[in-house]
């Protein structure tokens, strides 16, 4: 019984952290799908989302309004980032663009230090956070928020990419940018849209995690890297696959930490990344389509 409740606890933890990775991984996938860029400033969107919402709450705004406003503000930051850093350099090589995103992520962290300093801050939980006991394991309402939002985003993305005109246009830009352009789709606009959406989703991830782990200027880096691992493991070309990958990584980390050692959890998840890259580079859950390699 005790072992069972420990397993359940580990599963809850894994799902929570997996949900956070998922929300950031979705951003990776959207931008990658539309522009072909791996955006390493993705984790910084989460950091901005968390810190901006904290500042707004401190300015006495109600929590829900602070969260919505911070998502909007981060989406605007995303738009500015796309127009100034990505769009202007869109004809350079992929490597250049990726390095630009790394540069931007460093700049974002620097800006965050200037605004918020290096001290940790925290956001109140979305709802009353009395732990729920379930078979001796503990689940917090905030964890449910994280898991629930990840699932909502998952469904929304599936719907968006498969059943809406804009979603289809986005996909078209990936499959064949030239043909898409002939069909009257403007890839420039799509690139902007992709970055804005993923910045918004990233900001949401930040506000979800802030009550759980607190927030500080450097939180984005590790989250971004883990989400990247998750996206690659699941499949970079496909949002639902990346989300599945994120939950998988979260659960594997939780079980490694709980049954083995905390120091080894990064070793295990990064080893998994290498293994996947060797064996199944298109990702565990992605349909092999030859769209992108």
């Amino acid at each position, binding site marked *: 019984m005790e072992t069972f409740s420990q397993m359940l606890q580990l599963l809850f933890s894994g799902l929570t*952290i997996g949900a956070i990775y998922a929300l950031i991984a979705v951003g990776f996938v959207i931008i990658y799908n539309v522009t072909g860029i791996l955006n390493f400033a993705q984790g910084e969107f989460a950091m901005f989302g968390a810190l901006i919402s904290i500042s707004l709450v401190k300015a006495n705004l109600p929590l829900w309004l602070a969260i919505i406003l911070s998502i909007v503000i981060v989406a605007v930051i995303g738009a500015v980032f796309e127009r100034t850093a990505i769009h*202007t350099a869109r004809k*350079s090589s992929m490597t250049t663009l990726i390095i630009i995103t790394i540069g931007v992520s460093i700049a974002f962290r620097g800006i965050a230090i200037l605004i918020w300093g290096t001290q*940790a801050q*925290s956001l109140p939980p979305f709802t009353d956070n009395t732990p729920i006991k379930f078979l001796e394991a503990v689940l917090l309402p905030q964890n449910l928020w994280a898991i629930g939002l990840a699932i909502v985003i998952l469904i929304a993305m599936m719907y968006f990419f498969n059943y809406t005109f804009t979603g289809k246009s986005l996909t078209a830009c990936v499959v064949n940018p030239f043909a898409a352009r002939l069909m009257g789709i403007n890839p420039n606009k799509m690139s902007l849209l992709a970055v804005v959406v993923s910045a918004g989703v990233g900001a949401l991830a930040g506000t979800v995690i802030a009550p759980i782990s*607190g927030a500080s200027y450097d939180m984005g880096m590790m989250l971004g890297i883990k989400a990247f691992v998750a996206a690659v493991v699941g499949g970079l070309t496909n949002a639902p696959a990346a989300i599945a990958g994120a939950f998988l990584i979260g659960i594997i980390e939780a079980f490694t*930490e709980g049954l083995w050692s905390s*120091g080894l959890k990064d070793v295990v998840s990064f080893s998994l990344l290498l293994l996947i890259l060797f064996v199944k580079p298109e990702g565990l859950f992605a349909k092999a389509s030859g769209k992108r390699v």
Partner: protein
Amino acid sequence: MKKTLLSLFLLMGALLLVACSSSGEGDASGTESSGDSIKIAGIFSASGGAAALGEPEMQTLKMLVDQKNADGGINGRKIDLVTYDDKSDQNEAILSMKKALTQDKVSIVIGGTTSGNSLAMLPLAEQNQVPYISVAASKQIYMNENGQARKWVFKMPQDDQQAVERILQYLKDNNLTKVAWLNVANSFGTGGHEEFVKHMENYGVESVIEDEFEATVTDAKPLLTRVKKANPDAIIVWGTVQESAVVIKNIRELALDLPVLASHGVATNQFIEVAGDAANDVILPTGKLLIADKLEASNPQKELLIAYNEAFTAKYNKPASTFGAYAADAFSIATKAIEAKGDDSAALRDYIEQELGEYVGLTGTFNITADNHMGLSPDSFAMVRIVDGKWTLEDK
């Protein structure tokens, strides 16, 4: 295309330039510089990442020097304080030290907010044979690789060793002998862990589980399920504010009903803010400034601490911090040396090492000797417990 890239580079270059020029030379804001004044240097990280520590240190030193000069200086000689802000940057710290020693030719240096900066600055003090009182924590600051005292360097804060020993003493006194040790996976954490392993047997404490968590930990519950299984009497969470807050929140969420001890690294009100209700009942060692008004009247530190806190609050309109107290101790020890020996650097060093003797400061009672250039013992820490978001004295 090339043009846009070029302009990006130019922009970055411009940004760098701004950053560099703003970090130009240290501001030499000397108070009066009459012919017969005694020059001392204060080098702190008053801005940048370590500003939370360095700013009160700088402010304390300026305040105390102003007070001293208003009272007529030391033996009738005014103090000429030269301050430098190293902006939490090691290179800046070294440059400031160089400037203080070679251009400003000070008699004694106080400063080095972080251990990294102190370690970077001290070789210059040794080369130039000027006594240097550090306000950072690492043991290596006053001890070289062979465990011997560095000739020209003294240090005000306790080592991690004293904090760990204070916790062990508390565990022993309360008969909590089987403990879980969790430390953050960085130099602060592993340093604490080393001291814990080295000293636990002396206090009859054994660990049933020892493990690490990351500084960026988001959920420590998986780790804590193993702690729960190990069935300890108490849990020690050794880290700084953010990660300790997460782990301690998780302990409360899992309803592990055990005494939780934390490091002196979380002894700030910010910890209570970040951890919220979870901070309640956490027990930790801290300098006595936080609980000065709760000390017994017979404690010789009590009056000093209250006086310092009042003076600092009156001048800067915010509560004094433990870090400022390190600068205050450094200054009062320097003042005593100058009173006795004037401004000769070598004589000042010898005085602090050999003649100062037992000295009651804000941080504790210093007993500086030729072998120990720090001189504090574990009882310079008090054990406090957080009750309803307030610090209360748990032990001594």
